[in-house]
């Protein structure tokens, strides 16, 4: 025992190095899992404040582009509304009570890392909670994984653990969408049944199976689908409808019946996916 201590003391530098490396790596590998990152990520108002002070300065440079995007979105919403109201009034009623949307500003966002995150300026006080879906004006953006009083941390769709349950619009087949490319404009549609042929321009929507996102929210359009020789599930490349590089405003989706749905699906433990 005494020899061990002597050995440790003599090689103190190396021993501390190994210990610190082990701590770092275990932290890192834990943070790579989606479920662990939910419990691991501590968001604090301090970081949010640092980012939003930076954002306050930089925002001015993007006001014009941001305005244009908002105008486009407004126009689209208007046209949607008129169609929906005349068509199926009752459905709108149900959706309105089921989902609530909270608007928020993006204060920090990356697109070039292997795992990208978005920070927004709404948190617990605005009713934001973990595992709520986040959408931009044009499509799905990510999932909330951490909240502080005034800020929330979002796992961007551009994250290796972000896998979204999706549906092919033309034939309603279920697939999944993941970010396997390193390009922030494109992702992969995975788990495509081998008898399905996708063509350029096919639309991929959220499936509504995950409790996080409502049904039929735009994810992207197919740009390439190469049939492979094997009979297994196939992959195709899609272009995200969300422009992650210029994300300014997002909406957090609150599913009012989430707990109820969760209990039905999984009475033992309230976890999903």
């Amino acid at each position, binding site marked *: 025992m005494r020899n061990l201590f002597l050995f440790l003391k003599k090689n103190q*530098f190396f021993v*501390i190095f190994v210990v610190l490396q082990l701590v770092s790596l*275990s932290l890192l590998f834990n*943070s790579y899992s989606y479920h662990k990152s939910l419990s691991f*990520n501590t968001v604090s108002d301090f970081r949010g404040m*640092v980012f939003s002070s930076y954002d306050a300065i930089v925002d001015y440079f993007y006001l014009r582009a941001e305005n244009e995007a908002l105008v486009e979105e407004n126009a689209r919403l208007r046209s949607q509304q008129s169609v929906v109201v005349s068509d199926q009034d009752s459905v709108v009623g149900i959706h309105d009570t089921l989902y609530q949307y909270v608007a928020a500003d993006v204060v920090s966002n990356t*697109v070039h*890392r292997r795992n990208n995150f978005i920070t927004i300026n709404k948190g617990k006080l605005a009713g934001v909670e973990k595992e709520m879906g986040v959408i931009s004006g044009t499509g799905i953006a990510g999932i909330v994984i951490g909240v502080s009083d005034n800020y929330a941390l979002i796992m961007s769709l551009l994250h290796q653990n972000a896998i979204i349950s999706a549906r092919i619009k033309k034939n309603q087949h279920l697939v999944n969408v993941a970010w396997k490319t*390193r390009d922030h404009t494109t992702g992969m549609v995975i788990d495509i049944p081998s008898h399905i042929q996708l063509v350029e321009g096919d639309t991929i929507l959220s499936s509504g199976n995950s409790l996080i996102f409502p049904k039929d929210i735009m994810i992207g359009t197919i740009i390439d689908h190469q049939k492979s020789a094997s009979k297994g599930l196939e992959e195709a490349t899609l272009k995200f409808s969300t422009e992650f*590089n210029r994300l300014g405003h997002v909406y957090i989706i609150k599913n009012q019946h989430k707990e109820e749905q969760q209990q039905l699906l999984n009475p033992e433990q309230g976890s999903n996916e």
Partner: protein
Amino acid sequence: MSNTIKHSIYFLLIMALQVLALNHMNLGGYLNPYVYVLFLLVLPVHINKSLLLLLGFTTGLCMDYFGNTLGLHASASVLLAFMRPSVIQLFFKNLDFSERESPMISRVGFMGFLKYTFVLVFSHHLLLFYLEVLSFTDGVQTLLAVLLSSLLSTAVIMILVLIFGSRKT
């Protein structure tokens, strides 16, 4: 000014530069300068080695805190701190440093500091980028990113040291 206070101020300034400015640089995804390691490079030569490791770990964790990469920068910075004494021994073994002295251009020369910086920055970036990708599938692409980012980080560090270094004692 006490050495501890001086280095604490360096820490705050360098972290602010990294987090507020350099982290937001989007140069095509290949170029991510990580200049915060400058803080570790200019610590006194004769600093307690264990303290050096702990400072490396803390600096890395601070970066991880702002970048949501728990453990990633910590690991790379601890490696840098571990290598630093050997690299100093390798390049500057003929020089006698006083108790509180840091490796500075005025002392080790421009080329000396450049070599010292590039070797440590490259090792740091090598571990950092491969840990982030966690696969060797696009190994060449990552290596290119490591090399280009190391060159950029080194260049920015050299510029900073040339601008502010003369005033440091």
